[in-house]
């Protein structure tokens, strides 16, 4: 049957800390992680048809270095680590990206699936992040499929991350291998979530595999 060529997209945003403290092996591991996610999604037929990827980096400022694109069209950006940790700017930019990128539900048609967001940071924010987070939560807070924040290393403040989302992961280790495990987990979460077939039940929520041992959930309660 000839149905109109429109797809319910499943947008995935990666918010990556590219501050100076990530220089060297960590940023390389992050770069490889993004490439690995892309490769794995290319090989998953469900993800290939529905997942759309975007990358936002934050250091002295925030930048959407890869605009929301289908897995086929996505080009993993080249990441460089230098500068501060403008987390607030990244959250504000994420809000703008949602406004611009996402197709909302409308009369008689379901829009995009709710976006999945994965945030990775190894330090405390250096900008005034509170107003940005408050504005983001007020505008988009209830319309996100999942927002997972990973804090890694010893300088990270998970209190800050818990102000953004309830789903906070902590990992003491910032070795390339540990980061790789995080990205592998992100990749499988995206793949599992993209395979769910009910249209309504898939509005929210992340279908995630068990956490690798290097990470643990960091919950206030």
């Amino acid at each position: 049957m000839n149905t109109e060529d429109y797809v319910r997209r499943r947008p995935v945003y990666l918010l990556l800390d590219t501050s100076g403290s990530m220089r060297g092996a960590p940023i390389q591991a992050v770069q490889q992680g993004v490439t690995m996610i892309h490769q794995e999604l290319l090989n998953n037929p469900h993800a290939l048809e529905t997942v759309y990827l975007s990358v936002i980096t934050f250091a002295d400022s925030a930048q959407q270095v890869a605009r929301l694109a289908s897995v086929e069209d996505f080009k993993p950006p080249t990441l460089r680590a230098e500068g501060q940790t403008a987390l607030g700017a990244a959250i504000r930019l994420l809000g703008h990206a949602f406004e611009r990128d996402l197709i909302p539900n409308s009369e008689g048609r379901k829009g995009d699936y709710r976006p999945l967001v994965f945030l990775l940071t190894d330090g405390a924010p250096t900008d005034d992040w509170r107003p940005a987070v408050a504005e983001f939560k007020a505008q988009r807070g209830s319309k996100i499929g999942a927002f997972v924040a990973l804090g890694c290393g010893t300088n990270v403040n998970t209190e800050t991350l818990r102000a953004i989302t309830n789903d906070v992961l902590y990992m003491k280790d910032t070795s390339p291998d540990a980061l790789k495990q995080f990205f592998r987990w992100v990749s499988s979460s995206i793949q599992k979530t993209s395979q769910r077939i009910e249209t309504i039940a898939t509005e929210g929520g992340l279908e995630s595999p068990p956490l690798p041992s290097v990470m643990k959930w960091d919950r206030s309660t």
Partner: protein
Amino acid sequence: MPPLLHLIVDPRGWATPPDTEMLSALLQARLRDLAPLSAQVQLLDERWAAELPQAAAVALLILARPLADGWQAALQAWLDDQHLLYIAFFDGAALDDLRQLATLTAAQPVARAPHRLAAQTASQLNAALTWFEGVLKKLQPAFLPEPPPPPVRLAPTRWRNLPSNQQDAYAYPDWLTLSAAGAQGYSLIGASYRGRTHAHQGSFRDDAVALGVTPHWNILAVADGAGTATLARIGSNLAVTSAVEAIRASAPDAPTPDDLGRAVWVGLEAAYHALFNFANAEYLPVGDLNTTLQLLIHFPLETSCYVGVVHVGDGLVVAEAVDGQIYSLTEPDTDPNDGGGTLFLTSAPLNQWKRRAKVYQFDERLNLVALMTDGLSSDLEPYDELLQPNLFGALRQRVLCYPLPLREQALLSLISYERRGSFDDRTLAVLART
């Protein structure tokens, strides 16, 4: 280091003497499939045994005349597990030489008696190389290296189509079609198609469809078992079959429009209780049978008709009247709290669903009624623009143009299209004025 191939050709007694370059080219051509080996060719002279290569080598000696004496000691010194010699000969060679050569080479791996060549011609030289190639193949892999394996290439991403386990105690076929001749000259057709997610994983189709006919009523039901429920296929099939069967069994002989609403309740109750009874009997949580249900009873009269309908969960029931007007008989059933939960037959008390039953009165006849699960209805969004050309139009052009026996397959092929991002099972039940 792979061994060297060393060919020694006796230049005596030829009509036209063999060309060493030509022989070398011939040998190289034969080796192309064998391994990355290099070859050299030389003509036989008195010092041949002393000039055998020092590096690991497999040599082939092609003899045409008796050998000059004095080769035995040098050859014996040369032969070992890294230096092998094979012999081919024309009739001019000395039997005594051959006997001695055979004795010396009898202990080497893949030992071969000297190979006799019929006539001293270029084509027989080629036959000698064929024989030698056979020996070399036998030497693989102990002596000669294996050729490199072919490069590994990534297969492009592909959808698998794995059959579901038909040995399962609760197996259902991966696709299903039904049809029946209904009351008042209507016909009923149903088709259910397993979606790509289930096909990729080799799991069961969770959708179900059932049709029923009484002398006055046409009954259709479709259901979508929840992907999160382990026995969803049982739930959906129990719901549609028990609802249709209960309505059929309790249908009055001379029904009035008032009976229609009660009959919808009978079907709803039967489906609801079937799920709880099965769950109780099998000691299962009833959530394992989670399913939606769209149930419709059509009561056609001479120039008008009544339609009783109830729906729980996603999916769509639409009708087209003779004047082409389209009626949506159900609303998309989303959770009012926007919490994202699908509604299932077992997720609320029966009375709540009973209140949803509706009876529509049409003062004209209906051309078409279609019940579908959300695998199909969500592909038809937005409904207003797509229903007319893409559902009713396609049904007329691709299904209803056939006689009844052929319509089942036509309906199945209509709903088995491939569409990007569409993974769910699709089920369509159609009531058509023939």
